[in-house]
């Protein structure tokens, strides 16, 4: 790193420009990571938080079951078959539907869950709702000015707020929780949407054919629009990583070409190709680490500020993973560029005409 660090000091304008580009891309990637996780949380936290090993989706007799909360319904026979299946320790039916919660004349879009108290998110105050009661998430309660004991309307069903729960959401709408019976009235549904199952095994026969059990993570794919949204954001992340590797690779390609005379001199005085490649990679690592650290700080800071307005999830993973990937891919790009060092002929240091 002897020559590499002095090159950075000497050509500080060029390296500062490159570092700034890395920092900007890192900021964008960190922001996108935080946004992806935040959006995922808003789309999935209610289902992801269910105390279940598997989610069972159902279909009417003769129809093919599919992993979709909007297309699934479980009848009494399927419920009974799952409860009776060997290895299954519990099978709790629950319903989910998008509807509207009106409180004090203010309406909010919500995801209404109908379930037993066992499936409820942690209660922050009040008690689990009985028939005629509803539990509301903390943020929704704050924004709607709702407290325990207030009367609210869920769909067309009038209910009393019995509890404030930890925040959960489904399909980007905050979740409210009521009993399955109240949910059926509010959502105009006859049957629960799916089953939250713990334990292993499953039923045989017609119930098995008309239901599909998937792991809790795979069940998230059944949330309308989630897979497409998540996939799109991950594609954007991937593009940014590729752009970053290409930009860093292009910079170090030009830089290596410009340095060829210096490299020839160093080889002529006894520097090995390995020494020079290590020196150049060290230089790339220094630029990448500095740029990525700056970009991570900017992305995390900006995200924390933006979190008040957009669903931004700030955690060690949403910062460290994209920064690590940026540095590694940038190094891969620069490694392709600096391998040209190995082809520099030290003879050229003695003059081009020989």
């Amino acid at each position, binding site marked *: 790193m*002897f*020559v590499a660090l*002095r*090159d950075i*000091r*000497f*050509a500080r304008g060029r390296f500062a420009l490159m570092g700034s580009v890395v920092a900007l891309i890192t900021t964008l990637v960190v922001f996108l990571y935080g946004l992806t996780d935040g959006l995922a949380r808003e789309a999935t936290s209610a289902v992801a938080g269910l105390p279940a090993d598997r989610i069972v989706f159902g279909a009417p007799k003769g129809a093919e079951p599919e992993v979709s909360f909007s297309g699934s319904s479980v009848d009494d026979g399927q419920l009974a078959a799952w409860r009776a299946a060997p290895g299954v320790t519990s099978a709790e039916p629950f319903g989910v539907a998008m509807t509207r919660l009106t409180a004090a004349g203010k309406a909010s879009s919500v995801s209404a869950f109908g379930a037993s108290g066992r499936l409820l998110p942690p209660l922050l105050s009040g008690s689990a709702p009985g028939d005629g009661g509803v539990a509301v998430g903390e943020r929704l309660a704050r924004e709607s000015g709702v407290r325990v004991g207030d009367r609210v309307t869920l769909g067309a069903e009038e209910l009393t707020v019995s509890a404030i729960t930890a925040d959960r959401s489904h399909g980007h709408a905050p979740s409210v929780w009521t009993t399955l019976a109240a949910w059926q009235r509010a959502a105009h549904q006859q049957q629960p949407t799916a089953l939250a199952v713990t334990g292993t095994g499953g039923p045989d026969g017609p119930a098995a054919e008309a239901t599909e059990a998937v792991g809790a993570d795979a069940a998230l794919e059944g949330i309308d629009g989630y897979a497409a949204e998540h996939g799109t954001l991950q594609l954007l992340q991937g593009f940014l990583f590729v752009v970053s590797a290409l930009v860093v690779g292009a910079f170090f390609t030009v830089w290596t070409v410009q340095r060829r*005379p*210096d490299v020839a*001199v*160093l*080889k*002529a*005085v*006894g*520097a*090995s190709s390995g*020494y020079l490649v290590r020196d150049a990679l060290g230089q790339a690592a220094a630029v990448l680490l500095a740029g990525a650290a700056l970009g991570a700080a900017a992305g995390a800071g900006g995200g924390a500020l933006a979190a008040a307005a957009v669903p931004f999830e700030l955690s060690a993973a949403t910062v460290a993973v994209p920064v690590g990937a940026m540095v590694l891919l940038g190094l891969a790009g620069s490694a392709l560029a600096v391998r040209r060092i190995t082809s520099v002929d*030290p*003879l050229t*240091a*003695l*003059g081009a*005409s*020989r």
Partner: protein
Amino acid sequence: MSTSSVLSLEAVKLTYPDGDRRLTALDDVCLDVAPGELVAVAGPSGSGKSSLLAVAATLLRPDAGRVVLAGRDTAGMSGRERTALRRERIGIVFQQANLLPSLTAEEQLLAVAHLRGESVRAARSRAAELLESVGLDAAKRRRRPHQLSGGERQRVNIARALSGGPSVLLVDEPTSALDHERGERVVELLAEVTRRHRTATVLVTHDRALLGVADRVLSMADGRLGEG
């Protein structure tokens, strides 16, 4: 090969491809240089002087003959071994100073120490000593190449070549970018460092007017080396 020589070229032949035929750059060249001896090789452009230097520096393999450097025959050496030999035993004074633009005069020497695996801190005093011995004061040691005159750059070039403590010093047209007066001073400096550092020095030049200080002057024409 003389027993006292550090650099020995024995019947060296070197050819280059030139269209359908091969051009002979070195034709049966023999040369022995002893420690502390300055041998000047003069000749017109294209006579093979620089090819001679490139072969002696292990940058080119001859087609025939032997190059023995500090008692080691370079013929069977791998690229890695030849690189190590250049690092440990050979100093090259380039025609253009070829200094790295990002490094100060002192750092040019420290870079060589670093690639030799020496501690930069420990090498600093020797670098200062060498630069002082070629006439660069403390202020100029901290300057980068573009802040030095042509003569000063050539002095740094010489100090850098000496910084690894070489047995052999190969000097390629050191005065070509300098006026006569500065060129004369540089050649005198080379003669002085050759004696002081006991290097076997080969200086190639087209300017015979500068060769009064050499111990031996040889001439080169059409790839053949002869007495001056």
